[in-house]
């Protein structure tokens, strides 16, 4: 990761964070589908990044959002979970898909089909951890699952849309 990509990545995180706090925080489609757009920041980190720095980045990213969401620990727990699974999941899918060439697992780099199969399970895991933490002891399993499913569909759509609009082709960030 050179200095240029470091700066553009920091800017990306900042923008995603601002959008998340100012717009998506107050939005839930039909009271079910939440948008966790900032997860994109964890998804498109370069494939070569080591797990330890990835975990730390994800934890503090989640914690920052938690402070604004008034949900201390929940985003942090969920973001850390997907950061831990991400390298394993990348490795597992590369056997069949072959991500080895791509520097970053982003939409312009790996194409829409592969991106969905890479991103959707991770986003679903994120939502699952988040809503389990949120509804611990109060809500039922059905509520958690339906919120997770609709949120991960909505988030995946958002993540794809943002990449289609703002990511340049063949220029990984």
């Amino acid at each position, binding site marked *: 990761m050179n200095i240029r990509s470091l700066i553009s990545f920091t800017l990306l995180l900042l923008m995603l964070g601002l959008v998340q*706090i*100012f717009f998506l*925080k107050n939005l*839930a489609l039909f*009271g079910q589908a*939440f948008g966790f757009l900032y997860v994109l920041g964890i998804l498109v980190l370069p494939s070569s990044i*080591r*797990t*330890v720095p990835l*975990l*730390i980045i994800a*934890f503090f990213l*989640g*914690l920052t959002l*938690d*402070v*604004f*969401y*008034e*949900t*201390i*620990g*929940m985003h*942090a*727990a969920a973001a*850390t*979970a997907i*950061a*831990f699974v991400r390298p394993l999941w990348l490795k597992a899918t590369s056997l069949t898909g072959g991500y080895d060439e791509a520097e970053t697992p982003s939409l312009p780099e790996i194409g829409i089909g592969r991106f969905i199969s890479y991103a959707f399970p991770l986003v679903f895991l994120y939502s699952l951890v988040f809503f389990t*933490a*949120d*509804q*611990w002891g*109060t*809500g039922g399993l059905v*509520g958690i699952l339906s919120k997770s499913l609709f949120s991960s569909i909505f988030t995946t759509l958002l993540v794809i849309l943002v990449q289609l609009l703002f990511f340049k082709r063949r220029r990984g960030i």
Partner: protein
Amino acid sequence: MLRILQFLYRIRAFLLFVLLEVVAIWMIVSNNSPQGAAFFNSSNAVVGSVLQKQADVVQFFSLAEANEALTEENAAIMGQLLTLQSKPDSLPLAIDSLLSMDYQFKGARVIANSLRFSQNYITLNKGSKHGIKPGMGVFNTEGAVGRVKSVSENYSVAFSLLNTGLLVSSKIKSSDVFGSVQWNGEDKSEAKLLYVPRHVKTQEGDSVITSGFNAVFPEGILIGIISKVEPDKKDPNYLDLTVKLSTDFSKLTYVYLVENTRFNELDSLYRQAEMTNEY
């Protein structure tokens, strides 16, 4: 020994993962317990100022509505004031300590509000500098809103009534039967009235108001209207009462805070009597 160290080094990512998750879970637990120390939340100065800027812009669009509500309230208060004003021919009496004010009121603006989780909080733009203290009740003209959880210099965070951790001592207005209102985490316009025994006669449309027992709210602040009466399926000794909340939590803008000036006295009395007050 070296082997163990090598092994630990090899699974360092996993260990860090477990550590971070434990930290996160510890934060969730300590944040959600009513007595837990709040270490970071939106009453933090930086976060508070960001949220305030956002509220400044967003609430600009609902100024007309807020003004209208304030005018209506003013009119109602003026009416009450007229009835209280003494006639010129009356004799002023020194007020007995029995009738002196137990409650102090303050106003604040909501700068952040969540609705969609099972633990919802409200951030207000007043803090310890303005005399806000943890434990104060929050309400608006429509009804009860919540209770202050923690306070910083300029901002404060309150439990919303839409927080499954908050119980509000309340009673049915017509029969004076008391219970606790608690949100069940499902519909943001409905809560449950707990601990009402089965023999109590109540019907849909009865008002539920604060009981004044818990030293947070004065008696008589509206919470909602009973919308469904059913026998409790889990415990047949109680009724399962659904209360339609009178406050519209999606439109909170201006709220009042109430402080019981006798709170310390009451609290020390409870302690002396070894009672635990659940607020």
